[in-house]
């Protein structure tokens, strides 16, 4: 992957219109439908699988039952494109930026890009913004004007309070019943154990989760040139920081937090990527495609292992 081919984020941020920014980013990617690995009611048969208690009896193929005296659920390929939710962190810590634009600017551009891209692929895209709680939501739809609504939600000014992933993720799992792809855009600057359970709930609801961690280069590598009183953007707490002694400890703690986060990702079997705000946004699209590929791979593997032969057998 050659980064030089992609648009420079700093240049991109100069474009005021969010849709234009998204269009500019997505314009390198080929649009096209992709098959959903998810099963639903459709006319196109997908597979049989043995009935297990709890399955909807409407799905039982009575003809096959008549033939084999066994219950089989008849599965059809879902024709609908995938349902995707973009979850954007708008807390005050996202306001930080050392490159002339903040992490929030980057996140909003990225969310717009992903929404544009997914809309172009005829996917149902929804959006949810949060700070300490959910502040705005557009349900996932594929219809005319959906992209405009998403961009309008992104254009709303955040009121700016502290990051709290616990509440928004709980709310997310309550609100969104249909499984789909959850793309969470945040800096995740909260202790990892605080949102582990909520993330696990999402996964348990069979949502596909992609964490995109957006960080400023200054956050990844702490650099202060001289002793400074540093003020927390969220709490307003001030602290005297001497970079000679503080940088090493910062790096230790930051790395530990990152490793905790990646350990969580590993445990839950979800995808995650970290983007520095100076990195091109296309990287997220690549990651999205990879997620799609992984899903398809997993879907095929599952259908192969649970084929109708066994049910028929």
């Amino acid at each position: 992957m050659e980064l030089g081919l992609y648009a420079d984020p700093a240049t991109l941020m100069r474009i005021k219109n969010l849709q234009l920014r998204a269009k500019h980013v997505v314009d390198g990617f080929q649009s096209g439908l992709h098959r959903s690995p998810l099963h639903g009611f459709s006319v196109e048969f997908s597979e049989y699988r043995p009935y297990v208690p709890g399955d909807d009896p409407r799905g039982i193929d009575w003809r096959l039952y008549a033939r084999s005296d066994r219950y089989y659920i008849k599965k059809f390929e879902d024709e609908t494109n995938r349902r995707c939710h973009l979850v954007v962190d708008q807390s005050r810590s996202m306001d930080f930026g050392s490159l002339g634009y903040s992490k929030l600017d980057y996140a909003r551009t990225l969310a717009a890009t992903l929404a544009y891209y997914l809309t172009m692929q005829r996917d149902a895209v929804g959006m949810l913004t949060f700070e300490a709680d959910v502040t705005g939501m557009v349900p996932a739809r594929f219809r005319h004007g959906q992209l405009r609504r998403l961009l309008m939600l992104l254009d709303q000014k955040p009121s700016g309070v502290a990051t709290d992933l616990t509440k928004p993720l709980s709310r997310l799992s309550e609100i969104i019943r249909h499984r789909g792809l959850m793309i969470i855009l945040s800096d995740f600057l909260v202790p990892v154990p605080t949102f582990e359970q909520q993330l696990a709930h999402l996964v348990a609801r069979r949502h596909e989760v992609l964490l995109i961690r957006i960080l400023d280069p200054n956050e990844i590598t702490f650099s202060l040139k001289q002793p400074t009183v540093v003020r927390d953007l969220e709490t307003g707490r001030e602290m005297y920081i001497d970079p000679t002694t503080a940088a090493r400890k910062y790096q230790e703690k930051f790395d530990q937090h990152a490793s905790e986060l990646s350990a969580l990702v590993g445990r839950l079997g979800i995808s995650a990527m970290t983007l520095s705000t100076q990195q091109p946004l296309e990287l997220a699209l690549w990651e999205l495609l990879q997620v799609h590929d992984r899903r398809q791979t997993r879907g095929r593997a599952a259908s192969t292992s649970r084929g109708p032969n066994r049910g028929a057998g």
Partner: protein
Amino acid sequence: MSFLAPMFLIGSLAVLGPIVFHMIRRQAKGEQVFSSLMFLEPSPPTMMRRSRIDQWLLLLLRSLAVLLLVAAFARPFLPSFTFVETAQSNVRKAILLDISASMNRESLWPAAIERTQSIINEAKPEHILSLYTFDNHVHSLVSESEAQSHSDIERKTLLLSAIEGVQPSHLASNLGKALTTIADRLTKLEGNRDDLKQVSSEIILVSDFQAGSSLDRLENFQWPTNCHVTIERIRAKGGMPTDSSNVAANVLETKSSDSIPIRLVHRNGEQSKSIELEWLDENGKRIETEPNDSAALEKPSKPRSNPLKIDLPSESSLVVEMPKLVAPNRILELRGDSATFDNRRWFAKPPVRELQIVCIDDSNRPTPESLGYFLKQLPLDNDVRQVTFAWRAPRSLDPWPDLQRVPLMVASHLLTVEDAKQSRLRIENGGHFLWSLDAPVSDSSPRESVISAWKALTNGEQVEIKEAVSKKECIWEKIDFTHPLFQTLADSRFNDFTKTRFWQHRKIELSPSSAWKTIASFDDGAPALACCSMGAGKLWLMAAGWQPAESQFALSSKFVPIMAGIFEDSLPSERGLSRLETGDQIAIEAGEVWEGPSHEMLQPVEMADGVRGVEFTTPGFYRVSINNIAQTVAVNLPASESDTRTMELEKLERLGVTTKAKPNEERLAAKEEQRKSVELEKDQRLWRWFMIGMLGVIVIETLWCSRA
């Protein structure tokens, strides 16, 4: 530049403060926001290398402010020679030499003189040295003004010549009075000299510091702050410590008929001493008779020797009995202790006064029913008086007795108007008169005669006298125990009068506006015993008789003390001639002539209250003749002077006196230097400029900071 309080310069270490603060890397360059402080920890202050200190000017300004403040507190001054010379002329010293009787011990006096002379010789030219001596009084030998009017050499000559003829006296030591007098004098001189700087005065106290010295005057005296007392304790010549042990003998009150008790006190002795006591004759010569010879000494009931040898343990007090004297005047000599100045005690037997109580009553009834029967038996005799009793018939034409010989007359209800008039004259001239209404006045005849006598006695004072009507006997109920007559009976053991019953009494209604004072009342409210001062004398009135027909009073235990009290009250006040000490002053009465121990005429002195009197300066026998009647009185050394234990000098300090032990020259010089420094600093007050400078530096620093 010097500093008065250089200890404050330690505070200059505070300059390290600004330096350290400048070296601490705690200078935040503005403020920076950050997304989250969750990965950050506050940095502790760190020191930077000296070469990295910036803001050198600020550091210098802050250090300078600290140093100026420290310097101001250290009270800087510039030494100035000329000023010191001026200040030196203000040193004022007074030598206070003890000449009390205790200075007569051993070789104390030559040592005291020698020390005083050396103090005079060692005095610096700028020291204005005056000289005082003290015993019971303070004597000025060379006063401050005299000392100041002479040059240094002349002053020394004057002082040395003044000290030459001085000898210790026989008076008690009153150190408190001497110190307060001299301190007052020096302080007043300070107050008068406004032109000079206030300087400290010094009293050089040359004394043996015996414990008996009186310090009472210091208790209510505010000791001046700028006056110090230098202690010069005198020791025996040769530097040996003085033997402060002493045995004191005191003649006690004679009680036994055949012996005289002597109290011996052995103070501060480390071992027991063998003491010999002996009576000497009036001229101090041994009595050349056998101890039991009745010619010289009264015959004792048990044999006592003269001289008497006693082994006296250390720190003990013992009463021994010496044979009683026949001759009135004797000297008791004590031998065997080291301090001989108080070894003689003079003893003069006071003359016996012959007194009489005359009772105006019917002399034909010397029976228990008469007043005089009990009066006659009153035990009123003692060593100095012999009291007899006599009757005087009413309307007697005998001459009235001498007031000196008969201070008290007693009368019964038979007092006539003529006798009453005469008695009033006696009372007004100082006599005392006790009138007892000892018979019923139920009938009009006796009542009228009593009222007539009353009016004659009280110069016409109105009174109502009648017989008290009571079915039961009366007692004394309301008694004024604050009256001197009853004071001795006020104790709960003696104040029960309920058993003294009065079968009958008279009810006297005294005029409330009169001078009568009711001392005791009957339980029916009528006065029982009253008195009234008339002229120089006193009239007593009893509303009942004391004989058994009237009451139980004569037979009660209260009779003797009350009657003795009335009699004693009638006697002229004692002049205290039996217990005179050196230093005592006594007023001269008209016609008195006093002779000293060497038969010299005593010159009258003016006493504190302006009365002419005589002062006893030496112990011995003094003779006083009043109207050609001679009496010998003994004057002894004050007992306090025999207490030769060493006084605790802390006692002086507890009383507020600023003392210092004998200072050495270096300490004196250092003290003097310190004093000069204080004056120079006070004069220059450089600390104010340092404070102003410090404030200026702070202002510059503040401006510089705000500009930066």
